[in-house]
């Protein structure tokens, strides 16, 4: 009720501290560190891999087909004699490209739509929310599958399909933030000073409403990898011989019966670890930015 800058005031409600010291936070969240480590490994693999691994991902060599992991081929070779490590390393590039593109589109469009919907309310908001609900009713993978089937089997279409499935999450999250933020005095002050609505929405409110969406974006990066690999596994989107992790798993699946486990195991493990890494980061971000955590 009263304000002053007391160094401590228990009457004041805890405000989220926006600039908590980075290392202090990091130390308190081992999961964040683990996630960042995993992510770093994947990116390292993507960037430095092609230079460090002497084999070409597409070069077949039937003499050394289906060799188990060894010193010369740490992940073994597949049915065509291609080095699996090389294929995994090159696949990283593709998967990460897909993941980041998907999230960029979903985040960008979702936030814009959510902002608009939350700010204006009324019938516009109702219509947008109903459409969002309809899209959310479908499991994202099934929806992406359907859209890819309709649009055609190319990488851009896979990206679009998955992004469409994710957009509603960002619309919802942003709209939620906007509904409360637009009641705050600074939003009203922005109008009072003479800002047109679009400036109030996108210059004043948006920067303050992004946090949950950004947390969700990190999680979506992980999901996108799973969804893209899943689609590729089913033969949609990306096809062999392109070394994408899902494709690799699919190719290796038939070798399991003959007990050659490494052909699908390693790509699968990389998928899981990457998605897991993003999840860890996303969860820690959510903890760090949620109001109770941010109170000291």
């Amino acid at each position, binding site marked *: 009720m009263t304000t002053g800058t007391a*160094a401590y005031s228990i009457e004041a409600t805890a405000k989220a501290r926006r600039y908590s010291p980075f290392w202090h936070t990091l130390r308190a969240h081992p999961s964040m560190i683990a996630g960042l480590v995993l992510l770093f490994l994947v990116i390292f693999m993507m960037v430095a891999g092609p230079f460090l691994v002497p084999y070409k991902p597409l070069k077949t060599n039937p003499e050394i087909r289906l060799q188990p992991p060894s010193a010369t081929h740490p992940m073994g070779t597949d049915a065509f004699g291609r080095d699996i490590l090389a294929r995994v390393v090159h696949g990283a590039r593709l998967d990460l490209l897909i993941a980041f593109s998907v999230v960029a589109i979903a985040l960008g469009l979702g936030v814009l739509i959510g902002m608009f919907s939350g700010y204006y309310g009324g019938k516009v908001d109702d219509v947008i929310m109903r459409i969002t609900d309809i899209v959310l009713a479908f499991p994202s993978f099934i929806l992406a599958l359907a859209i890819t089937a309709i649009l055609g089997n190319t990488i851009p279409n896979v990206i679009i399909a998955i992004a469409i499935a994710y957009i509603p999450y960002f619309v919802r999250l942003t709209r939620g933030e906007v509904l409360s933020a637009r009641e705050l005095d600074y939003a009203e002050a922005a109008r009072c000073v003479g800002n047109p609505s679009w400036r109030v929405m996108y210059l004043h409110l948006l920067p303050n409403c992004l946090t949950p969406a950004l947390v969700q974006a990190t999680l979506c990066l992980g999901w996108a990898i799973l969804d893209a690999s899943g689609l590729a596994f089913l033969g949609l989107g990306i096809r062999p011989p392109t070394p994408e992790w899902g494709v690799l798993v699919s190719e290796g699946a038939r070798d399991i019966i003959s007990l050659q486990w490494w052909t699908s195991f390693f790509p699968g493990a990389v998928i899981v670890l990457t998605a897991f890494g993003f999840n860890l980061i996303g969860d820690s971000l959510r903890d760090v930015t949620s109001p109770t955590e941010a109170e000291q």
Partner: protein
Amino acid sequence: MTQNGPLLSIRSLSVSFPRRGQRVQILDRVSFDVSHGEIVGLVGESGSGKTLSSLAVTGFLPRSARVEDGEVYLDGANLLALSPEEMTKVRGRKIALIFQSVRSALNPMMRVGDQVARAIRIQKNARPKEAHQEAIALLSQVGISDAAKRARAYPHQLSGGMCQRVLVAMMLACRPSLLIADEPTTGLDVTIQAQIFELIRDVQRETGASILLITHDLGVVAETCQRVIVMYAGQIMEAAPVDLLFGAPTHPYTQMLLRSVLRVDRRVKPPEGVTALREEVTYAIQGCRFAPRCPAALPVCWEQRPEPEDVTLGHAVICHNWRGNHGTCHQD
């Protein structure tokens, strides 16, 4: 006033909180007494530590707080040395607390009549039906019209003023020796505020309880309190009977407060000169924490905490320079 010694005696209480990895001593050697049947006002602005002091007395200090030193005696027993179970018994029987945020003090899932009845049953072990009858009587006594019907309401169905009255009814049920009221009328309209304070005064007259009234409103203090204690940044600055505090304020902080006070019965003149609006409250000073803003500060004020001195009987001031200070509170 038949007992010997004060009802509540806080001796040199120091409480610290963690801040940025260090412990900051927020309350610094706070000492004051409340006698039986007395209404004492604890006055200060935000950050003064007044709410924290009340939490220390009632055992509601947050987990991160640590009592570094001092004792809190209620009727001779040191409250800080009690176990949580023993403290729970003291609360409600001997001490009652009225908060600022009225609605959060009441259980939102329980009808108000039931909450008052429950307080009665804890006190007296009465049977549910009798407790309920008495609850209705109490609600009526605190000025809630149509008490039998209102008793069936939930807190969210009542206005802020009504909820505050329900709290007072619960307090009446407990018959505590000490009532601590922390800004009890925050957020309530002025006309409702007047009603609540009238009610509190009536209850005090009837039960003879002592009241520790925590507030920032000097008008309320002037009308309701018999003695006043002024706090700033976790330290006590001055303590005096109400006429002396307003008539002859001695501490530079008290004088500053009184110079800044606005009145509705006449037009107040703006204070001259000083527009250096330094507001930051720092707890890091060894001596008197008001020194950075004090017009009469001496070098020793920063180093060493002054000892309490008596200006006259019952009027104590904690200041190195109170004799040399020629400040006044008058707004001419």
